[in-house]
């Protein structure tokens, strides 16, 4: 009787252990898939931000080109100055906003600092140096400033 119970207990324990093992195996696979999905999502974020940044950079370039061309052609009168000045400032703001979003993602660890430091360290620094007036105390581009400070110190 006791021997039969021991065998029964052993079988139940073995079945329980097997069920637990197969469940753990499934959870492991699901975690692996989740990690892969997260990587893909991060890559999507990066590609989306980079696409945005590039298209806004092109617009900023176009605005600058319009100003320079108007000056060369001698058509930069008061009205043109206002129109092109507004266009230039709007495209600049749009480009800086995209860069600020990238820096936000880096600051909040949505994307890896290490991966982007090499690529954007000089760019961020050059932009702040060339547009000092946009990165003063009241600047809305806090993430760019923070990222630059961190990258220049380390």
């Amino acid at each position, binding site marked *: 009787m006791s021997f039969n119970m021991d065998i029964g207990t052993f079988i139940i324990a073995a079945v329980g252990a097997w069920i637990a093992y197969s469940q753990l195996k499934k959870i492991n696979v699901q975690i692996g898939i989740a990690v892969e999905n997260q990587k893909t999502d991060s890559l999507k974020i990066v590609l989306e931000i980079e696409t945005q940044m590039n298209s806004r*950079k092109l617009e900023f*370039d176009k*605005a600058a*080109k319009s*100003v*320079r061309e108007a000056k060369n052609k001698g058509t930069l009168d008061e009205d043109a100055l206002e129109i092109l000045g507004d266009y230039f400032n709007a495209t600049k703001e749009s480009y800086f906003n995209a860069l600020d979003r990238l820096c936000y993602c880096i600051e909040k660890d949505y994307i890896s600092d290490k991966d982007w430091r*090499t690529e954007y360290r*000089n760019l961020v620094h*050059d932009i702040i140096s060339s547009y000092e007036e946009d990165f003063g105390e009241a600047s809305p581009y806090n993430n760019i400033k923070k990222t630059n400070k961190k990258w220049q110190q380390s």
Partner: protein
Amino acid sequence: MREVRTLEDLREYLASKYDTEWEHISVEEKLEKQAEILCRFELSSEEYNYAAPLTLALEDQSAKKTIINTSKAKEILVKRK
């Protein structure tokens, strides 16, 4: 230089240089150092582009040109206002 036998070895070697020794040098210096290493091998242009982490530098160079272009426009706008 550590042993580099395949194109993949070369690519990994350069990537590690970017991450460590060259992390804080300018893009121009990176390009020079990168070219110096790559010229030691007989590579086709496709192999060269594959091995070199050039995309990083190209993005930076492209942004520099934007900064030059827009800074000139900014000067014009500031002077005329």
